[in-house]
């Protein structure tokens, strides 16, 4: 591993940002800018908006986020295991199976509890 590889990524990230910004700045000299109050209204198919824009939405989005966090961490744990798979051999496999199994049970629990239903 070389830190320089990451330096390259950083440099390219900066480059890409500069490119994008440049494009926007160039556009600034070309494009018109004639804002009118009506134009600046949120788009509601032409109907005046009465409700607050940050209305409530279903909590299931949170549930998905929470589930994701759990399983993403599971994935993190599986990666090193997968890489060292040959060295860990059967014992490691059993332990990983136990780990995944527990999470799978958790998933089943959520499933059964209806956390995955999206209605």
């Amino acid at each position, binding site marked *: 591993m070389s830190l320089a590889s990451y330096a390259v990524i950083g440099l390219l990230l900066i480059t890409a940002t500069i490119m994008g910004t440049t494009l926007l700045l160039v556009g600034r000299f070309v494009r018109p800018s004639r804002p009118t109050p009506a134009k600046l209204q949120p788009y509601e198919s032409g109907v005046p908006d009465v409700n607050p824009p940050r209305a409530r939405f279903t909590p299931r989005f949170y549930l998905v986020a929470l589930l994701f*966090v759990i399983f993403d961490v599971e994935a993190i744990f599986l990666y090193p295991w997968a890489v060292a798979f040959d060295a860990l051999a059967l014992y490691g496999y059993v332990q990983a199976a136990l780990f995944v199994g527990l999470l799978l049970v958790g998933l089943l629990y959520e499933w059964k509890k209806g956390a995955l239903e999206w209605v």
Partner: protein
Amino acid sequence: MSELTTAHFLFLSAALFIIGMVGVLTRRNVLIIFMCVELMLNAVNVTFIGFAWEQNALTGQIFALFVIAVAAAEAVIGLGIVMALSRRLDTVDIDEVRQLRE
């Protein structure tokens, strides 16, 4: 490029940790406080990895992995609570949450 030393890791992590801590102590938005805590946890991870790097041992990295896992669990609980709060109160400002007083 100059040589990387443990001190670099430690300075970075200390900076992150202090930023997070100051954030927790000064910010009023629950979510931001929460993010600051996460920042602190990640600062800890950097410390662990820095020391592991110095000692050329894996213990610190393993610890960091566990910290990540626990942080995830913590996030789950925390978001659950914040969500319950915002649904009841329509705010995430900690100063507006004060039913519990004599």
